[in-house]
């Protein structure tokens, strides 16, 4: 960060290269939309460039980055709720497919929709705790909440996802066998 503060583009390229994929995946899973996720990730990366001179290493860089990405996603979502809901409605219109790729894509979309139905904080808890494989303490730090509160969020998110996904999956399989 000290090198980036001195406008060292090579250092910036290296840092962005290291964290871009992670930031984009978090943003896409939180927002449920690739285009918005790319916009948010770009915004966050430019913030790193602009704010490097004021960077103070109070926390791990990755923890700070997760926090910035999450806040940027929440801001984005607050500003664009109607568009996000419209996208979900379109995605809900699944067409039956025959080949494996189509089935895999449909399943992926179902999980994405189920995640989007979760309250924001529960969804973030799943993204950080499951997909990013952060420890509970790291995820709680990234969300700026207490450890116990994070564990509660994760527990509720898991229960709700089970209700949404597994029961639906069983009904689907059961109907297929009939």
């Amino acid at each position, binding site marked *: 960060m*000290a090198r980036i*503060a*001195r*406008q060292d*583009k090579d250092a*910036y*390229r290296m840092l*962005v*290269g290291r964290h*871009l*994929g992670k930031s*984009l*995946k978090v943003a*896409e*899973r939180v927002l449920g939309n*690739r285009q918005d996720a*790319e916009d948010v*990730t*770009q915004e966050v*990366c*430019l913030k790193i*460039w*602009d704010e490097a*001179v*004021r960077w103070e290493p109070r926390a791990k860089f990755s923890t700070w980055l997760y926090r910035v990405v999450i806040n940027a996603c929440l801001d984005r979502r607050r500003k664009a709720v109607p568009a996000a809901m419209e996208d979900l409605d379109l995605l809900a219109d699944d067409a039956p497919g025959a080949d494996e790729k189509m089935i*895999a894509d449909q*399943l*992926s979309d179902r*999980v*994405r929709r189920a*995640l989007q139905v979760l309250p924001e904080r529960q969804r973030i808890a*799943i993204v950080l*705790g*499951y*997909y990013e*494989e952060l420890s509970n303490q790291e995820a709680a730090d990234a969300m700026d909440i207490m450890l116990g509160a994070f564990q509660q969020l*994760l*527990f509720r998110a*898991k229960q709700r*996802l*089970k209700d949404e*996904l*597994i029961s639906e*999956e069983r009904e689907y399989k059961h109907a297929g066998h009939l």
Partner: protein
Amino acid sequence: MPDIFDRELAALLDSYKVEEPSPELMERILRRAQPRAGAAVIPLWAQRQTFRPHSAFALIGLALLGFWLGSASQVKPFSVTSAPSVSTLTLDGVILGASNLNEVIL
């Protein structure tokens, strides 16, 4: 994989795939990261200075201390060439309250 997720839910969650970032996104970000105007001429230590309340109090305190020290240094210097008045500074005046030694003897 965290223990709390049972295999069934984990398998479903794993089916949600997200693509890696495209090289175009990386290039777009690097292109938009432009040098900051004037940053080259401002030294790093100066760029790091940000306003904080405790810094402001420290500055005000220093200013007051400087003002006080400046005022204190305005005391007129003692001159060894100018004779002090007898009534206030001579030994007999201080101890006995007389204007000169002759008065005491008399």
